[in-house]
């Protein structure tokens, strides 16, 4: 079923909307939740929370891409739960590892976060300049938080080769951010 058809079901408050969303995007949401949280039970609960959030927000939301909307909602719910559960400690899930890798691009020095939109726009330019394959790798690793070994299997590469490629992409990002005047 097309996304707009499922969104129409949400508009008309038909419960079939949830069934169709689960059929089409359930596996994607589960993967995102599992990448961030520690165990499968939490991930399953979170996916159900995602469906509830979609039900409560569509309408009035009119997502052009239900896929992106569901993935974003799921990821934010997962990150909220992760921060709640790990307020006092680190460990578990892909989030700490991804943050460590990104810290190579910039030192984790204390600074005011005042450049969010500018940084996002710069990221868009950086992503646009990447070859499609590298761009997909970057987003799958740092947006979807896909583990490196799983990502290597998905794209048919050896893990070591993928790690080298990701390192080169991160170096490019660092150079780009420096060139754009960001404090790195």
């Amino acid at each position, binding site marked *: 079923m097309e996304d707009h058809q499922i969104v129409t079901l949400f508009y008309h408050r038909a419960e079939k909307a949830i069934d169709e969303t689960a059929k089409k995007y359930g596996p994607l949401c589960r993967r995102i939740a599992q990448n961030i949280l520690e165990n499968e039970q939490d991930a399953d609960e979170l996916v159900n929370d995602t469906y509830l959030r979609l039900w409560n927000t569509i*309408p*009035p939301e009119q997502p052009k*891409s239900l896929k992106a909307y569901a993935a974003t909602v799921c990821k934010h719910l997962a990150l909220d739960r992760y921060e709640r559960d790990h307020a006092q400690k680190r460990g578990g899930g892909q989030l700490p590892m991804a943050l460590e890798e990104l810290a190579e691009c910039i030192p984790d020095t204390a600074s005011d*976060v005042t450049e969010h939109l500018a940084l996002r726009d710069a990221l868009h330019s950086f992503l646009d300049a990447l070859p499609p*394959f590298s761009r997909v790798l970057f987003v799958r690793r740092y947006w979807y938080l896909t583990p490196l070994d799983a990502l290597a299997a998905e794209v048919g590469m050896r893990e070591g080769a993928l790690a080298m490629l990701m390192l080169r992409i991160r170096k490019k990002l660092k150079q780009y951010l420096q060139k754009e005047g960001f404090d790195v």
Partner: protein
Amino acid sequence: MTTKALFQAIDAIDAHYIIEAQEEAVIRTHRRRRNRRTAAVCACFAVLLVGALTLPGLLHPARVDGDGQQQMADINYGFYLNGLDYQPFGAGDYARYPVLSSMQYSIQYSITREQRNELIKRMAGEIVGTVPADENFGPGTVYRVAAYPDYDSIRIMYRDGNYEFYVSDGNSLYHYFAETGDRSSGNAFAFHGLPESILTVQTELIDGEALGEENTRELFAILSDREDVEYAVWAARVVALWAQTYGTDEVRLNERGEGLSYDATDRDVYERLMQLTKPQTIWIATDRGFDELLICYYPQFSMFTFCNVMYELQPDEVTAINTLLDLE
């Protein structure tokens, strides 16, 4: 800037990057180019060994990508058959079909080509078609996958001495439109084999009664042979009906005159608009293995949509359809 700030900025990237990252086509293209590059290198060594041909004569014209890497010219490794575009399996495709997942390990554990051919050959079902030869490849024979007899989305092809899995991302109605130059409703129905391929037609969103066979044929007779119209036609009729119903311009055409403009934060306007534009949904299940098809019928606008294409109806046709669907 902190690491967290960078992470939050990545989190806020536009939706199209998030969607693109899930598209296997990019991965498949990269794998084809990498394999072609590898094959070209092997061929070069073979040339050096036999000393028969020059290097430039072997390599396809190269392009330079953003990384400064030379890439080979694109070769279409896929094929088009019975309305579907098929491309070679990517790494992620094996996971979607559990019976085939074991084949993925054959890549990693390096069984011989002959062993792989034998394994895949055993999984082939009935022949469903042939693919003609082109400048790069010989003719191919296409089989169903025996373990998934009802799935049109996967196939096995035997070509140039090798068996391989192929996958389609979905029906290619738009490819069919482009090929035939005909976006009429009749052509769209023909692509899906309607009405002959119909199993059931239902007019309620939740467990409604099925439309009888005779009424189904009559319905499709009315809906066929419609030429597609632009979305702007629908938008104009929505605006006109809103003005007629509520006497306000809270819903109007946008600046380009091709869509609607209204205050999306006004819940009342939004709910009234949704009610005004609510379609009568017609669900169609077919024997073609596709998902359920959907016709959104808008009697209030004398229009209907099928597969995201919009069509107009005449007033007497609307009356006839309403009778068939038992609508007031």
